[in-house]
């Protein structure tokens, strides 16, 4: 099973700061690994391991290829001139064109970032593949739904050979418990982080990453456009901004409790 992990495809919202006039300082606007990228990579690696397949990286713009190469991925592709776009469908259009250029892809795994929640959904739509989003784990299973026999009852490869793993089983939380969905590739998986701690690669792994191939792509080569919507800019929301109390602990604690009581919250 060939799995593509999409990483560092959006700006780091944590690095942005809001100025007093409501404009946003993106601190250079570089792409950065998202909060969900490590979880997405873990899912991609699991699927490849289950099937004896491979993981290929894909990043946009100035995304740092070493992030994924130092984490065990053998090769990566980079659309270096891809701009950062407001339109999630346009971003997905570039990713879809890159996936087609890579070719023979079974599963695309993308971090399911809340701020760019449309990207994995639009990517699946543009590829014409099903999307399973909000996923927290995935494994390969031996039989696809709808195939002869009992569909979706096997565990991760469950003793079948890697070549027999024809479907993907994902799990995700739901309000009532845990959902398990089994589907056959090709698929787009949007993966949401479930763990906040991830191991950073060591120096040996970082050095090894330098020897692994990065295939450059351009918008022209993959036939992708970068047409975007037009931003008129940002402003502070109409709601009252955060009322911040600073000072001695006794004073600020009293102010907060008084405000909550005055507002009828307590």
């Amino acid at each position, binding site marked *: 099973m060939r799995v593509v992990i999409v990483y560092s495809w959006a700006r780091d*919202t944590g690095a942005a700061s809001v100025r007093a006039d409501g404009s946003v300082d993106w601190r250079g606007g570089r792409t950065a690994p998202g909060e969900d990228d490590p979880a997405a990579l873990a899912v991609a690696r699991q699927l490849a391991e289950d099937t004896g397949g491979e993981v290929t990286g894909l990043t946009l713009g100035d995304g740092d290829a070493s992030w994924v190469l130092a984490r065990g991925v053998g090769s990566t592709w980079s659309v270096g001139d891809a701009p950062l776009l407001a339109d999630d469908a346009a971003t997905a259009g570039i990713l879809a064109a890159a996936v087609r250029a890579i070719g023979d892809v079974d599963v695309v795994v993308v971090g399911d970032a809340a701020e760019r929640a449309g990207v994995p*959904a639009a990517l699946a739509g543009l590829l014409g593949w099903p999307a399973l989003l909000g996923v927290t784990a995935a494994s390969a299973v031996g039989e696809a739904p709808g195939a002869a026999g009992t569909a979706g009852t096997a565990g991760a490869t469950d003793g079948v050979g890697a070549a027999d793993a024809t479907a993907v089983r994902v799990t995700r939380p739901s309000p009532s418990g845990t959902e398990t969905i089994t589907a056959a590739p090709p698929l787009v998986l949007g993966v949401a982080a479930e*763990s906040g701690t991830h191991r950073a690669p060591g120096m040996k792994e970082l050095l090894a990453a330098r020897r692994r191939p990065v295939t450059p792509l351009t918008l022209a080569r993959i036939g992708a456009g970068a047409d975007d919507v037009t*931003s008129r800019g940002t402003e502070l929301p109409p709601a009252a901004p955060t009322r911040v109390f*600073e000072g001695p602990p006794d004073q600020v604690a*009293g102010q907060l409790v008084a405000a909550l009581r005055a507002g009828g919250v307590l």
Partner: protein
Amino acid sequence: MSAGAGDVRPAGGPGGGAWLVVADAGWPAALRVARGTSSGVSAAVVGPRALADAVAAAGVPVLWAEPAGGTPAEAYAAPLAEQLAAERPALLVGTTHPASRALLGAAAALAGARLLTGAVAAEPTTGGTGGTDGTGGSTGAGGSAWTVRRTLLDGAVVETLDSPSPVALLVQGAGADDDAPPPAPVAGTVRPVAAAPAAMTLTTVPSAEPAGGLEDARVVVAFGRGVRSRDDVALIERLADALGAQVACSMPVADDRGWLDRSRYVGRSGRHIAPRLYLTVGISGAPQHLEGVRGAQVVAAVDQDPAARIFRVADYGVVGDLYEVVPALITALQG
């Protein structure tokens, strides 16, 4: 989906009007945005009959596909997209729920619509040039232009965007965000349609871990990695007692440190709660966490970092060392 589509074509609005895509209970938030455009609104619903009836009761004509047993809503994305593309939608609106997003993504791609996340309002403008097909080509779908307002950075700012072509909007839904009484039922507006789903199977295992009353709590105190040791959780519990609150935590506290049961962590992949007051202590406010508490009426935060993301979304913020502020809060509450 193929039968009876013409019977629910909306009466007004640009292009084929606004279409609501529904697969979860958070749809009222999306409907508010759709109705704000003054377009005629129709809905495509994938889910149980009760969900279709609820949408229809809001006065919206509904195309309804009922998933076969053990089949997820996502399996209907392709036939739903074909159905909606035939309607030439000028606007598609759905929620960020995973299944709704999958349906909306497929529909947006086939309709050649832009897709914008975090939408809070939209209005039609003039000068549309038709949709895009994702590669820069034009599909001509709808032929309408839109101005969209959306939130960025966890609601810290509102951005205004102009699109020359049809748009699909993702709206943050919340299951319990409608305080208004339900509208009077409108009879005869749900039209079942046949649809051939993709081959998928769905099973749901009910949670074995009780939520600890978080879903129903009026007040919740949640703590994060700012709490330094397991013994210090007792301090948070004393604050919760003073507030009559339930105790929750951020993902790392439950998942990495194991200080609380996983049923107590709030976030996108954890509990989604909507208390009257959500008080955070030592939580920086990662998007993953904030998504689980968007339904809270009032958010108050204690954190020593004045630049913490939690202060972008909180109604009240206290900048200070939690080990000094929390005891002071307990004293103030008891006073």
